[in-house]
């Protein structure tokens, strides 16, 4: 029972990325109750996630991990045989949802904030239980033949 995979993924980088998403959404959510301009963090996070999906070298939280946390030994690497595509897809999906959330923030702030919270909940489920909903969607799309999974 061996994994026939040549690529590896550092799961600590993924965890740092998800923790960054949760923290940013929570700061925007709670902070905006006292200082409304903090809502700008949500569209900024959408941009960070979408840019990081298409150019992983520009993924902010992952770069914080690779340039700061990992070299200083603050977070230990956990490299496992895995494919990066499902995780990138999940991150992109999070970015898309946050972009939609950003559109709603001014006209319908309840909808905008609820969507952002859902992204944070899904990131939390991934950090806490290792269940990546975006990866499952990637798998289902692959089974349906819509993407090459």
């Amino acid at each position, binding site marked *: 029972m061996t994994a026939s995979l040549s690529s590896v993924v550092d*799961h600590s980088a993924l965890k740092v990325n998800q923790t960054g998403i949760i923290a940013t959404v929570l700061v925007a959510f709670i902070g905006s109750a006292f200082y409304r301009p903090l809502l700008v963090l949500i569209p900024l996070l959408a941009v960070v996630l979408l840019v990081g999906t298409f150019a992983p070298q520009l993924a902010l939280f992952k770069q914080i991990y690779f340039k700061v946390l990992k070299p200083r030994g603050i977070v230990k690497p956990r490299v496992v*045989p895995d494919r990066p*595509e499902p995780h990138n897809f999940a991150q992109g999906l999070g970015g898309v949802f946050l972009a939609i959330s950003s559109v709603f923030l001014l006209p319908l702030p309840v909808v905008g904030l609820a969507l952002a919270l859902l992204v944070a909940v899904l990131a939390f489920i991934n950090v806490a239980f290792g269940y990546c909903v975006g990866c499952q969607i990637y*798998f289902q799309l*692959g089974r349906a033949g819509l993407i090459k999974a």
Partner: protein
Amino acid sequence: MTTQLWALAVAGLVVLAAACLEAVRSRRARSRSVGAAAATAPEPYILYFTGENCSVCRTHQEPALAKLDGVRVDKVDAIAQRELADRFHVYTLPTTVVMSSEGRSLHVNYGYAPSTKLARQLSDARGGELRAIATA
């Protein structure tokens, strides 16, 4: 602050609805899958559905399966062997199916199944067969 509370309520309702739907779907798929047939074997064995993109399979499920000494584990790529995956209503990875030696599915676990749970299910499977032999 009211906006935040409403947003929290909306998000909470969506999460609750999703959790309920998932529970119903999982229970329905499990009940449909039990009894599905595959190959016969001298001992109860495990069908392990996985895929290249399943990270939980590698980080959690495979170490759990490795703890089950002497148990036959048939690894199945759920995407490549879609027909077999559909027979057991695999909708998430990993999925593990405890099969009787006659090739009938006895327990279906959607998502990660710890080694203790699998060991208990295998023990049930062996016990069931012993009872069947004793009453035959």
